[in-house]
């Protein structure tokens, strides 16, 4: 892995800078797109600005940035407007009206570009994938520094987005979460909608020729979605999404250089595609390992919970067996036939109980008995169970046949306080609805 030997600060440095600028600039408005459930509008707008670019080129007859920017913003706003319009008139959902508008505009744009192919190097094949690799070739001088034109433009766009998001933070926030409330507070939802569209269009057009529109679409949606999985606070989500976008872009270029040699190629692969891909991998990582919403942590939490419940059920069962037939010592298999649990997990939990001193194994027979400590713990559970049964019958009016299932679930989530309150509510019963004694509290207060 000697990618750093191929690293050339004046080339790769600028590419990474451009990638990061573009990614962060796109991630900022992207947060609100994702929150307002309009992610695909980012895709639509970034396709639909193509005719705006082409027409601006025809009119101004140059490739200078200002007319292109104006053309793209107009095209972007028209997309949002037409989408809204067709949705209203056609009685179709937003996705369909968006699909109608952006494909039409994109088709017009393609045809215009083909017509303009004589005069301009707007190449259709780099519309989608961009040509980020050629960024360092087009330099402009600022004072004594010579920096790529694209980097300059992307910094400008990033500044615009940062300023817009921080100035209108509150307005964006309220219209993202409760547009109606915003409207009543004097922040008309439609103004915020079109302001967002302007930001999206400006970002898309600035990134268009440099990094291609597919990377912009990826950066609009993927970093904010990843951040959404990691936090519930809007401010943190925006910051996180910027960090993720920047990391994704940097990693993307590094892997574009580093990965091909592993696969036996000696040249690098498409950087913007790779940036989209690495950001996607960051998303998958978050999907799997995000602390609260990640698939793996959730799975582990569920497994731990079910183990705890099973281990509690084991000693509660031993308590009931003792209660019913005196000094009976069950084996692991006796317990398993009642609880329908797996052999291995039951043995494991019984070992855990032995180690924590709640059960002892009778020497030789492999049968288990509760210790005093275990009996106290089990009594708590059985007390919770029977108090709940009593409560369900006397206070909630549930029929006696159905209370066991519910009490079986509730007993594991009932602490001392709740038990005391159940006790009070049911007037301190001594027998449960099935006629079995309710154990007394261990340390009566």
């Amino acid at each position, binding site marked *: 892995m000697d990618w750093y030997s191929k690293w050339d600060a004046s080339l790769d440095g600028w590419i990474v800078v451009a990638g990061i600028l573009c990614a962060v600039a796109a991630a900022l408005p992207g947060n609100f797109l*994702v929150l307002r459930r309009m992610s695909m509008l980012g895709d639509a707008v970034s396709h639909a600005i193509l005719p705006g670019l082409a027409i601006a080129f025809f009119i101004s007859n140059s490739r200078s940035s200002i007319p292109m920017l104006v053309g793209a913003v107009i095209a972007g706003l028209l997309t949002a407007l037409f989408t809204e319009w067709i949705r209203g008139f056609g009685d179709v959902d937003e996705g369909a*009206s968006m699909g109608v508008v952006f494909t039409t505009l994109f088709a017009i744009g393609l045809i215009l570009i083909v017509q303009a192919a004589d005069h301009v190097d707007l190449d259709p094949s780099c519309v989608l994938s961009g040509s980020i690799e050629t960024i360092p070739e087009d330099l402009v001088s600022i004072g004594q520094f010579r920096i790529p034109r694209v980097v300059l433009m992307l910094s400008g766009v990033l500044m615009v987005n940062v300023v817009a998001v921080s100035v209108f933070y509150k307005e964006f926030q309220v219209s993202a979460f409760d547009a109606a409330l915003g409207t009543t507070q004097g922040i008309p939802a439609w103004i915020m909608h079109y302001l967002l569209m302007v930001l999206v269009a400006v970002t898309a057009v600035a990134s268009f020729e440099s990094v291609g529109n597919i990377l912009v679409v990826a950066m609009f949606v993927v970093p904010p979605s990843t951040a959404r999985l990691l936090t519930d606070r809007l401010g943190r989500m925006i910051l996180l999404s910027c960090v993720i976008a920047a990391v994704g872009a940097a990693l993307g270029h590094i892997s574009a250089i580093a990965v091909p040699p592993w696969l036996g190629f000696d040249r690098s692969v498409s950087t913007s595609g790779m940036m989209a891909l690495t950001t996607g991998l960051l998303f998958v990582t978050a999907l799997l390992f995000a602390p609260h919403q990640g698939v793996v942590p959730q799975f582990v939490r569920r497994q731990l919970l079910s183990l705890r419940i099973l281990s509690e059920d084991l000693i509660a069962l031993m308590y009931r067996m003792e209660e019913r037939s005196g000094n009976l010592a069950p084996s692991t298999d006796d317990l398993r036939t009642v609880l329908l649990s797996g052999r291995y997990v039951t043995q494991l939990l019984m070992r855990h109980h032995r180690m924590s001193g709640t059960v002892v194994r009778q020497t030789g027979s492999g049968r288990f008995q509760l210790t005093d400590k275990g009996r106290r713990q089990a009594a708590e559970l059985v007390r919770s169970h029977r108090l709940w049964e009593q409560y369900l019958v006397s206070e909630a009016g549930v029929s006696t046949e159905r209370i066991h299932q519910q009490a079986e679930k509730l007993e594991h989530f009932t602490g001392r306080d709740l038990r005391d309150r159940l006790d009070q509510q049911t007037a301190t019963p001594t027998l449960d609805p099935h006629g079995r004694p309710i154990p007394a509290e261990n340390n009566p207060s």
Partner: protein
Amino acid sequence: MSGQRFSNGYLEVPLRPTRFAAYVFFILVVFAAPAVLVAAEAVQTETPQAYRSNHQRSGSLTDRSVEWPSWTQWSRVLLLKDYNTRVVVIGTSLLGLAAGTIGSFALLRRRALMGDALSHASLPGVCVAFLLAGPLGYDGKSLPVLLIGGALSGLAGASCILVIRHLTRLREDAALGIVLSVFFGAGVVLLSVIQQLPSGNAAGLEGFIYGKTASMIASDARLIGITAVVCVSISLLLFKEFVLLCFDEDFAAARGYPVLILDVLVMLLVLLVTVVGLQAVGLVLVIALLIIPAAAARFWTYNIRSMIGLASVMGLVSGWLGSVISALFPGLPSGPMIVLVSSALFFASMLLGTSRGILQRGIRQWKLNREVDRQHLLRGIYEVLETRIGEVTIARGRETEHVSFDTLMELRSWTPRRLRRQIARSRREGHLIGTDTQFALTAPGLVEAARLVHEHRLWELYLITHAEIAPSKVDQAADAIEHVLGPEMVRQLEQLLEKHQSVDGVANSPHALR
């Protein structure tokens, strides 16, 4: 609006001719299309390879100028004289047909953008198929191999969408965006790998992005034909189930239909059309063929049979016309042209459509406005007269007293122009007579005015007695509804409010008149 919706088809018994037309259509597609293709092959005049070298220009993205084609060119293309034009035109038309049919279900299922995500997600599969085909001993450029790869990665994309939607709290739109951009990014990376292969010539693969209709050969068209037959026949066979799935999923589940399987089947059909359409219009625009004809058809009808039929016809027409135009004008690539033709159809439908069209709605609104003005004017004059005379009934059978223009102006917030126009119209109808400033109701005008006032007051009374709205508020509320009260409704109201009827058949106003 809902009143009109009922009269426009939801409650109509499905007409025999529609079903008959559907069967004829189906038979045509099933038997005629392959027959045409076979015939096309039989009279082949140019080999595909020769054609490609001769006509490579048409449809490629690098052409520049648009020249008006000569008459012979017109006739050659329109009469399908060239073998290759024939193949391309038939292929794209059948693709349009299949996409229109399946797109209707996708649209009604609110899955329109799913096709977009699927088409982008198919790119890495196409590339992987190209990379693997060589070593595994297949032809890396044969379309079926590439399309199978595309379909597989499209399926992977669809599963990712489902996983993201079900395992996280992200919404469907974010899931679509993520899958679309990340898969496409992977595809772009793979494309750049293929371009660097010493043996690799990725020119054929880039055609999948923007479409490369001109290179379509008979076997490709036959593939599209088979797809069309499969799509249309499955849609016809499972029509009832699909419709139920689109409109009332829960009911379908309750009736015991395998909703999940049907849903997956619709998705598979969408995937099939998307993947097959890649070559014709490219992965960015193939979604247009699915959505636009279906969305356009919605402007013409509320009946799902007609909608799907219309959508398939529109898809067929746009495929046909788009490829014909592209064949005639070498500077116009066919993929975008097909999309533009369907967009043109869409906007025409949006404007002229007979059920939701803008023009239709405008006319309906305009008629309603005129009717409302007419009723307001007559009722206004009646109530002015009533207040003037007091409790006494207005004498029937002859003209009434005169009411001045200014008095009427004060009644409502209408402009003098609007009021004058309505007065002129009522005069023509024979309800009003008088000079420019003074008017009186004629005998028939009085009868009509009395009827309108009666309806208005019935509704007011209903609101007071049954909806418990304050008498001072009911005038406004009744204003909103009285114009759409039907005779049946009026009869029911009269029965309900019998005791309030006064001697002359007009209910008394429950509130003070201004």
